[in-house]
Each structure stands twice: as structure tokens, then as C-alpha cells.
């Protein structure tokens, strides 16, 4: 009887210790376990497929993936098309459009968003009504934005037609039908959609600025312009970074907006690289060329975003 009791007493701490350590180990590991599925999914479906795409771009894949490496013919063709300017090759059109669209879209959205945010920040009446009005376009999908603007900008249906009916018959606005200007209509629709969201980001940033600093500057005799130029905008720097990254990725993945708004534009003049990639991979059965263009898009993004992130996020000596 006593032996049993002692053995029980002996056993208990031995059992208890591993139990406690399992629990604490489990607790330590819990965040990792919870994150593991999404981590695995990201590894496979983002980075895995990036590698797969790079691999495919060096094969001669046509309709279906082929796994025999055949060299860099896809890149050579893209490189050749890069300098095909007259008449412009589809690839040349795509990358120049990306430049025009990316620059104007990001720049105008930032400028307009900041401007609207500063105006809304003047403690005006009805801000609660105005803010969601500016913000709502972001809730629409690109397809809806594209179709709405397609009708609005169509000379036979929308703005031009309406103004003609009102009597202003000399009014002329056919950018959406013009091969040289169609990309700017994509900018207009894109800016309309995103600038309200950027405004909200800046507004949040403005509200976070300490009022004491502003008052101090005013006491020192700073004009309103100086106040914003020297104090407010520099303080908003982190917001610029976030807004830039949001806008840059929206710009680069724009595909549906071009399709819905212009269906590719006259003679394919509104294409962006994403349209090129889809067209070549799925419609023309040139998967290798499509993959190569996707790789070039990725490289471009890395070339722009990485140095910017590095310069913004590194420790600043104080």
C-alpha cells in the first residue's frame, strides 16, 4: 500500500512537468501554428508561382506549360519589340502607357488627395457628409468605374452629347476614341476612383498632427502656406509612403479598368503590361512570352519599390 502511495507521489511531479512544458511550448508555438497555413499558402502561391513563372519564361510553352528549357527567345522577342516604335508594337505601347499612367495616376492622386484633405481639415461644416462622398468611389469595382466612365466619356452618349443638346455644339471631347489620348481617360477614371481614398489617408494623418506645433508656428508668424510647406507636409511623410505603395500597386495591377473602359483602345492603344500578359498567355497561346512579360513587370516593381522602401524605412541618424 505504502509503496503504491510513494510511487504515486514520485510519479506526479514527473508527469506534471512535461504537461506544463507541453502547454507552455504550445503557447509559445501558438502564433506560429496559427500563422503556418497562411505562411505556407503565401510561400507556394506567391513565391512558388513567381519561380514557376520565371521558369516558364525560359521554355517554349505555348498553349500548355512545357518544361523543357529552350533559352531566352521570349526575352529576345520582347527586347526587339521594346524598340519597335513605328508602328508601335503592342509591347512598346504597353510599357509607355505604364509610364504615362503610373506617373500621372500616382502624382495626381497624391496631389489631389492632399489638397482635398487640407480643405476638409479647415473645420468646415458638413465634413461628415462630404468625407464619405469622396470616399465612396473606392467601394466600386474597377469594372463598374470603367463602364460608367466609358458611357460618360463616349462622344455619342455622354458628356459631349449632353453639352451638344444643351447648345454648346462646338464642344469636342473624344479622347476615349483617340489612339493618342485614350490612356489619359484611363488616368481620369483611375484618379476619380482612388483620390478620395488617398484623401482619407491624408486626413487621418492631418488629424494626428499635434495642434501645439501649429500654434507655435503661427505665433512665430508663419503664413498658412509656410505652415503647410515647412511643417505639415514634412510631418505627413509616413502617409506619403503608405499612399505611394497603395497607388503603385493599384497602378501596376490595373487590368480590368482598361478592359472595361476601352476594351483595349483603338488598335490596342490603351494596353498596359498586364493586358499584354493576359493576351499573350491565354488568348495567343504564347505562354513563354506572357511569362517573360510578367517577369519584367515584377523586376520593374522591385526596381522602383525596393530602393524607395529602403530609403524610407532605414534608421535615420538623430
Amino acid at each position, binding site marked *: 500500500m505504502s509503496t503504491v502511495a510513494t510511487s504515486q507521489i514520485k510519479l506526479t511531479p514527473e508527469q506534471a512537468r512535461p504537461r506544463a512544458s507541453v502547454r507552455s511550448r504550445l503557447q509559445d508555438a501558438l502564433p506560429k501554428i496559427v500563422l503556418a497555413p497562411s505562411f505556407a499558402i503565401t510561400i507556394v502561391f506567391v513565391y512558388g508561382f513567381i519561380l514557376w513563372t520565371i521558369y516558364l519564361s525560359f521554355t517554349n510553352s505555348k498553349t500548355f506549360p512545357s518544361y523543357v528549357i529552350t533559352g531566352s527567345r521570349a526575352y529576345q522577342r520582347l527586347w526587339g519589340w521594346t524598340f519597335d516604335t513605328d508602328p508601335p508594337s503592342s509591347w512598346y505601347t504597353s510599357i509607355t502607357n505604364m509610364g504615362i499612367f503610373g506617373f500621372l495616376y500616382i502624382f495626381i492622386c497624391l496631389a489631389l488627395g492632399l489638397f482635398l484633405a487640407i480643405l476638409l481639415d479647415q473645420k468646415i461644416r458638413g465634413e461628415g457628409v462630404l468625407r464619405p462622398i469622396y470616399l465612396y468611389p473606392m467601394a466600386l469595382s474597377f469594372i463598374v468605374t470603367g463602364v460608367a466612365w466609358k458611357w460618360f466619356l463616349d462622344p455619342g452618349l455622354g458628356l459631349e452629347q449632353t453639352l451638344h443638346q444643351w447648345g454648346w455644339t462646338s464642344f469636342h471631347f473624344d479622347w476615349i476614341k483617340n489612339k493618342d489620348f485614350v490612356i489619359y481617360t484611363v488616368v481620369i477614371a483611375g484618379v476619380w476612383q482612388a483620390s478620395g481614398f488617398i484623401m482619407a489617408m491624408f486626413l487621418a494623418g492631418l488629424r494626428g498632427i499635434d495642434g501645439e506645433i501649429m500654434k507655435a508656428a503661427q505665433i512665430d508668424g508663419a503664413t498658412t502656406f509656410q505652415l503647410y510647406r515647412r511643417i505639415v507636409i514634412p510631418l505627413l511623410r509616413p502617409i506619403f509612403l503608405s499612399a505611394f505603395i497603395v497607388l503603385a500597386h493599384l497602378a501596376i495591377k490595373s487590368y480590368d479598368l482598361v478592359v472595361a473602359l476601352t476594351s483595349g483602345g483603338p*488598335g490596342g492603344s490603351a494596353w498596359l503590361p498586364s493586358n499584354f500578359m493576359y493576351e499573350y498567355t*491565354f*488568348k495567343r497561346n504564347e505562354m513563354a512570352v506572357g511569362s517573360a512579360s510578367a517577369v519584367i513587370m515584377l523586376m520593374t516593381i522591385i526596381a522602383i519599390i525596393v530602393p524607395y522602401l529602403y530609403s524610407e524605412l532605414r534608421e535615420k541618424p538623430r
Partner: protein
Amino acid sequence: MLRKLLIGTALASGLAFAAHAEDVKEVQMLHWWTSGGEAAALNVLKGDLAKEGYAWKDVPVAGGGGDAAMTALKAMVAAGNYPTASQMLGYTVLDYAAAGVMGDLTETAKKEGWDKSVPAALQKFSVYDGKWVAAPVNVHSVNWLWINKAVMDKIGGTEPKTFDDFVALLDKAKAAGVIPLALGGQNWQEATMFDSVVLSTGGPEFYKKAFNDLDDASLKSDTMKKSFDNLAKLVTYVDPNFSGRDWNLATAMVIKGDALVQVMGDWAKGEFHAAKKTPGTDFLCYRFPGTDGSVIYNSDMFGMFNVPDDRKAAQVALATATLSKSFQSAFNVVKGSVPARTDVPDTDFDACGKKGIADLKAANDGGTLFGSLAQGYGAPPAVANAYKDVVSKFVHGQIKTSDEAVTELVKAIDDAK
């Protein structure tokens, strides 16, 4: 004795039941015929199969056009999950056949005599390596003019027989203040019209050499230059808003009488029917001037996949029903196309359909039935799209002269080959 008989019957019926249970009585079908007229046409087939006890299951595809369906099909096939059949166009069938995923319907084809009744030009796409892999559903032809009769009467026009007649007719319409030519400025529509222009300008031999055989000398010949010049002439008759317009909106312009004529495949007839118009009294269908006697075709096919044995019976039933004379007639009357076999009676068809059937038969016998390059029946998709690029860039002014267009065409096609 009685007991033995009973056991025998029980066994036999059990066996029969087992044999029955092996076959899946369901047809899985991937297609993008979702619009009113097309869906109605397909219901005919669903009804025919239901009579034989086969259930119909649509494979859902998000998004309208064929592109989304083809992307979905690619994913299904990559995953080894084949549908019983899929709507497919031209070279896609051959691509999938080359990848070894298509079934074999040769036995059924022999039994039903498809070899003799289906035009040889179509068999190029439905037969791969001596095996039947697809069942053609219909034949569309693209070299048609669709004319509003009221407008035609108003301007006192007559059927144009040559390209110059056609230009004169367009001039008359212009003088009367109607939009002469309804065109949708999307690359496939422009290229579809150019198919007809080339056939009209160069004749059947030239069309075949240039757009089916992709012969370099023909592609850069003066005839091709002349064709581009003719296209440029036609483009001067469209309204300034044509860019990006959908084909059915262009058809609607003709239906309403805003425009005189549209150059479009016979699927346009479906729009006229939907608007309750009758051929001969409300609208006229002529062959594109200078192309009478030849037919530029494209065809919808049901590609038959290499499904497991228990689903083969359903597949054979689907293929047989698809190419049965009754379905071919009923379906194509609704769809606006003509039957994919030349021995179907034309009694139920309207005037345009009757002409289409007669033309197809004549073109098949005379060797003037050609695949449309714009519609993907002249060359593989890479080449066909390169061609559409060049035509569209020419129409919209990125390519300025016909000299340049011809050089670009040869370059683009060689690059895509």
C-alpha cells in the same frame, strides 16, 4: 423449374441493373452560349438528350466571352477533370488533341457517316491524326452584307456586285445623310471585314494562299496592298464614333435604320430575328461584293474529351445528337448559322439561311470553302491575333500606309509562326 427461372430472371435483371449503374447518365458541358437566342438554341439539344435519359449539366463559367471559358477549360484539363465536351473553336481543338486529352469518336463517326456529310474543310479541325475528336455544331460564314431594306429603298440602291458598286452604294447613302457603314472598331470586327475585302480583291486562290497557307509572297504582294487600300476606302464611310463599339450595337444601327449596311458574319442575323425583322422585307442579306460563290467560314465545335469509360456512353449520345439532322436544322434555324453537314434539308430556314446552305454546298464542292483568319480558322491563334493587330493598327492610324501595312503583316506573321 419455376425457382430456377425466378433466380435466372433475378440475376439477369440484377446484371442489367449493374450494367446500367456503371454508366453516368449525365453530360457535362462547358460553353459560353448564354445570351437569349443562343441559350434557346442549346435548349433544343438539352431536350433531345433528355429524351434519351441523359441529364444536362452546365459547367459554370464566370464572365461572358469565350476567353473566360477557355481559361476555365485549361484549368480543368490541367487538373485532369475533363468535361464531357466543351464548345471550342478551330485550332484550340487541335492544340488539345496534340496534348492527348481528346477522346475518339471514330466509331460513331463511321456509323453515322460523318465523313461524307461534314465538309472536308471542317474535318481539318474535327479530325486529328485520323481520329474524330470533335463534333461540329454549325457553320458560320463571315462574308455577308446586312442591309436595312427601308434605307436601301430610300436611296434607290441595288445589290452591289463588285467592290466599286459597293463604294458607289456607300456614296449614295452618305449623300442621303445616313451613316453608310456600321462598324465596331474592335480588332476582330475590323479583321473579319478585312477577310472579306481580301477575298473580294484577290479572289479565292489568293485568299487561300495568303490567309490559309500564309504564303509570304502573297502576303507582301501588290494584291494585298490593294486590299489594304480598299479597306482604307471602306473605313472612310464609318461614323466618327465607331472605335470600341460592340458588334451587336453596330447591327442595331442597321436595324434601326441609322446606318445602311454592316459587314458581319451570319450571327448578326440573330439580332435581326430578336428585333422581329424578316429577311427580304425588313433587311437584305447579300454576299460581300465580289465574293459570291466562295464562303469564308468559322464553326462552333463540341470538343470531346477523353473521359473515363463510364461516361463514354453519354459522350457518344451527345455527339450523335449534335450531328443528327433534326438537331442541326432546329439549332441552326435559331442560331442564324447553317448546318455542319451538307445533307440537311433547308425547309425550315429563312431566305438567308437557304442561301447560306446552298452557298456552303457549292463552296464545298467547288473547293472555295476557306477558314476565316480573323475568326481563328485560317491559322493558329498567335498568327491570327498578330494579323488582327496589324489590321486594327491600320484602321486606327498607327500604321499609316498600305505599304507599311504589308511589311508589318509579313513581319508580324513570321514572328508569330
